[in-house]
């Protein structure tokens, strides 16, 4: 195997022979290399966030008819570095009575919950961290670790508002986990495996074409899981005083900030891997780096979409948010799993992928139409027209009993 064919294994073998040549036991050398690989992947992910912050601020600026940062460096490219230095030099103010261990552990858990996902994403046909057989469930578990970080932050701050903010935030996250997990079943069902590499390899037709409505539901629930607009009630600066991270300053707050941006990008990568065919494209199997480029292009498309949504749509109220989840997304995702399972199992024995595509598209379109009709009917029933009074009733004592029967 050469470097271009199989980069990770090539480097690993070279380093392993180097370490064993220095006298390290083979088992220990393997462990050292695994830990080093994980550390490098984590550092690369964190460094990439610097570029993401610049990208987002520029695009949000343009959407709001202004330029965005453009002073520090060409096109403002060094602005995130300036922000980083500012945050590094700020003082850590620990509130009095704060529980030290949860307070300090919370930013670590928030970042860990996002970085863990990068270990299972297949960047190319032979570039990936680990090919877990249960990678899809691992992604859900990483989300749970992020929620733990929020609870630790709310509890450890010794601040009632932080606690309330943390509970509202966790309530939103665990509510939106349900349609997310249910729609994650659809790529698993269509490809027959929970391993992300197998899901990518079985996408000869992209799953977004085979299951457009579940893909849309997945995108919406992931935006809600990240806590971005329009679901950013949990960190709305104007409302609950910045929520659970109110008592954090300096780099600890910086870690929460980084975790949010990284989570948004990880959302885009997951969508690209699960529904847009991942690293698949012309000549991607022979040249892994080309697959990496394809994945990056697809991810940036989705990330651009989420940034545009953030800059455009107003924020939801908390009851609207819960309504959307429990009354629309959960029943719709459960029904879509049923419909996809039935249609797929009926059509797959026929063997032709085009027939499968047509049947599933028709099923999705039907479900979409039914959903729109149901939504329209429910909005209409809620907006009852006001009854115009035909006579003006003036309050008179002797006609009070009449008035009460007219109600």
């Amino acid at each position, binding site marked *: 195997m050469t470097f271009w064919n199989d980069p990770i294994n090539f480097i690993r073998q070279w380093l392993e022979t180097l370490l064993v040549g220095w006298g390290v036991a083979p088992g220990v050398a393997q462990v050292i290399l695994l830990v080093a690989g994980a550390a490098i992947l984590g550092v690369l992910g964190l460094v990439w966030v610097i570029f993401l912050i610049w990208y987002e601020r520029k695009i949000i600026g343009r959407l709001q008819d202004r330029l965005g940062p453009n002073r520090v460096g060409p096109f403002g490219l060094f602005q995130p570095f300036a922000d980083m230095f500012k945050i590094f030099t700020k003082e850590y103010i620990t509130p009095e009575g704060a529980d030290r261990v949860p307070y300090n552990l919370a930013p670590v858990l928030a970042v860990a919950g996002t970085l863990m996902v990068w270990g299972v994403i297949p960047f190319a046909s032979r570039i990936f961290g680990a090919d877990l057989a249960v990678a899809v*469930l691992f992604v859900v578990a990483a989300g749970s670790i992020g929620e733990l970080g929020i609870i630790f932050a709310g*509890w450890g701050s010794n601040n009632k508002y932080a606690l309330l903010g943390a509970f509202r935030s966790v309530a939103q996250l665990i509510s939106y986990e349900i349609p997310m997990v249910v729609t994650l079943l659809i790529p698993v069902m269509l490809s027959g495996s929970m391993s992300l590499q197998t899901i990518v390899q079985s996408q000869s037709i992209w799953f977004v074409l085979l299951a457009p409505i579940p893909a849309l539901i997945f995108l919406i629930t992931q935006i809600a899981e990240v806590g971005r607009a329009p679901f950013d009630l949990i960190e709305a600066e104007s409302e609950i005083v910045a929520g659970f991270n109110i008592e954090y300053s300096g780099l600890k707050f910086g870690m929460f900030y980084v975790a949010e941006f990284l989570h948004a990008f990880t959302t885009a990568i997951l969508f690209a891997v699960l529904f847009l065919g991942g690293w698949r494209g012309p000549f991607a199997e022979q040249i892994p780096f080309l697959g990496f480029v394809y994945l990056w292009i697809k991810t940036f498309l989705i990330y651009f979409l989420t940034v545009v949504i953030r800059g455009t749509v107003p924020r939801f109220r908390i009851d609207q948010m819960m309504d959307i989840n429990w009354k629309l997304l959960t029943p719709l995702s459960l029904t879509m799993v049923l419909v996809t399972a039935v249609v797929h199992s009926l059509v797959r024995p026929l063997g032709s992928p085009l027939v499968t595509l047509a049947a599933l598209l028709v099923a999705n379109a039907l479900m979409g139409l039914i959903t729109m009709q149901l939504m329209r009917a429910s909005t209409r029933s809620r907006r009852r027209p006001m009854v115009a009074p035909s006579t003006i009733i003036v309050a008179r004592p002797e006609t009070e009993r009449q008035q009460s029967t007219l109600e």
Partner: protein
Amino acid sequence: MTIVQVFFLLVAAVTLFAGVMAVSTRRIMHAALWLILTLFGVAVSFAILESAFFAVVQVVVYIGAIAILLVFAIMLTRQVMVDTGPQLNRGWWIPALLVAGLYAALVGVLSTWSSFQALPAALPAEASDLGRFGLALVDANAYVIPFEVASVLLLGALVGSIFVATDRKG
């Protein structure tokens, strides 16, 4: 001592320490946090036992749902932010003795078993085939009845807990 043995000893030590702290710490919120560490340690030991599926399900179900539910319940059932009074029963040394005796009895009885010191053989490839497990759960000759009973149990728990915890005064 291979690396895996050292790793397992570390994981077991952390889990047991967290378990002891979870049942003996004074503040109930800390007990929940120590429980989360214990559940983590149990998930890691599931992974060492080569059942990756149950390791991840442990994190998702226990840590991501049950532990968070425990934290919510602790917050909802406190009158003040601090715990007052002794947290252990007055005669707590009786359960301690009983538990120590039970542990000695368990280990003693198990050590007389012939396969107590068994070493692991390599698992065949079909052992980690999740599809086989999934098919067995819906096979009428296999485990569909426990599967359906578990679903009904979950439905009953869902409806029951909502009904029990509803505030019916308003």
